[in-house]
């Protein structure tokens, strides 16, 4: 599973980082680093929760 982060949509709510700080890295401004985020199988459920917690819908699961 891969999570795609849309840096243009990210507004720095940091809800993904609060739920899964080891998966979702923030830059110095507190916004998501752009690009694809590979998710280890055992963390897929957690990653799914983080995706659904994004108020901007800036995160998308692109591969199952």
């Amino acid at each position, binding site marked *: 599973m891969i999570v795609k982060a849309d840096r243009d*949509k990210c*507004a*720095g*709510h*940091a*809800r993904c*980082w*609060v739920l899964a700080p080891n998966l979702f890295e*923030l830059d*110095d*401004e*507190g*916004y998501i680093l752009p690009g694809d985020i590979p998710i280890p199988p055992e963390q897929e459920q957690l990653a799914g*929760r983080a995706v*659904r*917690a*994004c*108020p*901007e*819908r800036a995160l998308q699961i692109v591969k199952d």
Partner: protein
Amino acid sequence: MASQSPNKGPNVPAHVPPECVGSFNLYKSPEMRPTPFGDPFAAVGKLHEGPSVFYSPETTRDGQGAWIVTSAEDQRTVLQDGTTFSSYRRIFSSAIGEDWPVIPLELDPPEHGKYRSMLNPLMSPKRIAALEPFVTAKAVELIEGLKARGTSAEIMTEFAFPLAVSVFLAFLGIPDDRLMEFVGWANELLHMGPAERTAAAHKILGFLDGMIAKRKTEPGEDFMTFLVQAELEGRPLNDQEIRSIAVLLFIGGLDTVATAIGLDLYYLARNPDRQQELRDNPDIMPSAVEEMLRAFPSVTPIRTATRDVELSGCPIRKGDLVSCPSMASSRDPAEFPDPETVDFNREDNRHTAFAYGPHRCLGSHLARRELIIALQEWFARIPPFRIKDGTAPITYGGFVFGVENLVLDWS
């Protein structure tokens, strides 16, 4: 001014079809007025029985009409698109007959992003952690003070405002010996008539200009010092930019966090079972605070359309105001299952207390930590509490929802 149509009641512009006009008003509807033991949030939640977008005459503080957007999806459309929906409104400068934006709140992209990138690192979730010891110490000091004085207290003036404002003043580098005076200024600016508003704006600007001048010659470790030393695209900020940023942070920190503390304790005081839930499961406090931010958010972002645009079938015209109450989108059943239930374990809680889009509340991470610490320290020190017999908290709607005269009793 747009011409009026006689068929739709007063103050409805000609381009607004009659079927798009709603009767709800953020200031004047019965539940929005000051109400003993009121629940203005439930009243806004009921808007989801109607259309996602409707026109409300006289729904801003200065009596202008606006489109009110209730659904989370449409609010996301509006608030994520700063090109079509401008933030430039001169809320502060108009009070003193001037014309400049508070920065970055009233700037649009791409200009907005430059200032925002400069300020973001100061308020990032990681950076905010450094302020936690101060917040905790202040919360403990205030609560212990209340306990020493008795078994009841008016929470807004004795706990919520002193905590929120002293944290923010410390961040800005402003001494808190005039704390309640500043709270008074904010109240006059945000909640009172034109004359008080103008006087308050002059007092705030005069004070901030003095602070800016002082920090130029006596630098400290604070935000004001950061501003006078900051560089934007290779040049220092000019005095107008510095005061425009300082004004925003000064106002932003004065009212909203205190309001949230008050609204949370107002809810908990009337729901002893929920108090017990937090005492039995102290670990859920961060999640409970998120849920109360969803259930009781206080702010309504307003935008101005920069072109004609249709939203959920409504013809918004260039120049129209578009109002996005956070308390509406946060109770949208399409976004939140069972939105009227306050569920401390709610998952997927993408609430809108801090708005959507590039203008997401700059102070949101500090606000969250303050709320969590305030309630954790409160529950660690105060036994079960209730509204004091014979008193009546007053809720109100408007530009910033809130509660006053909140006397809690823990005898």
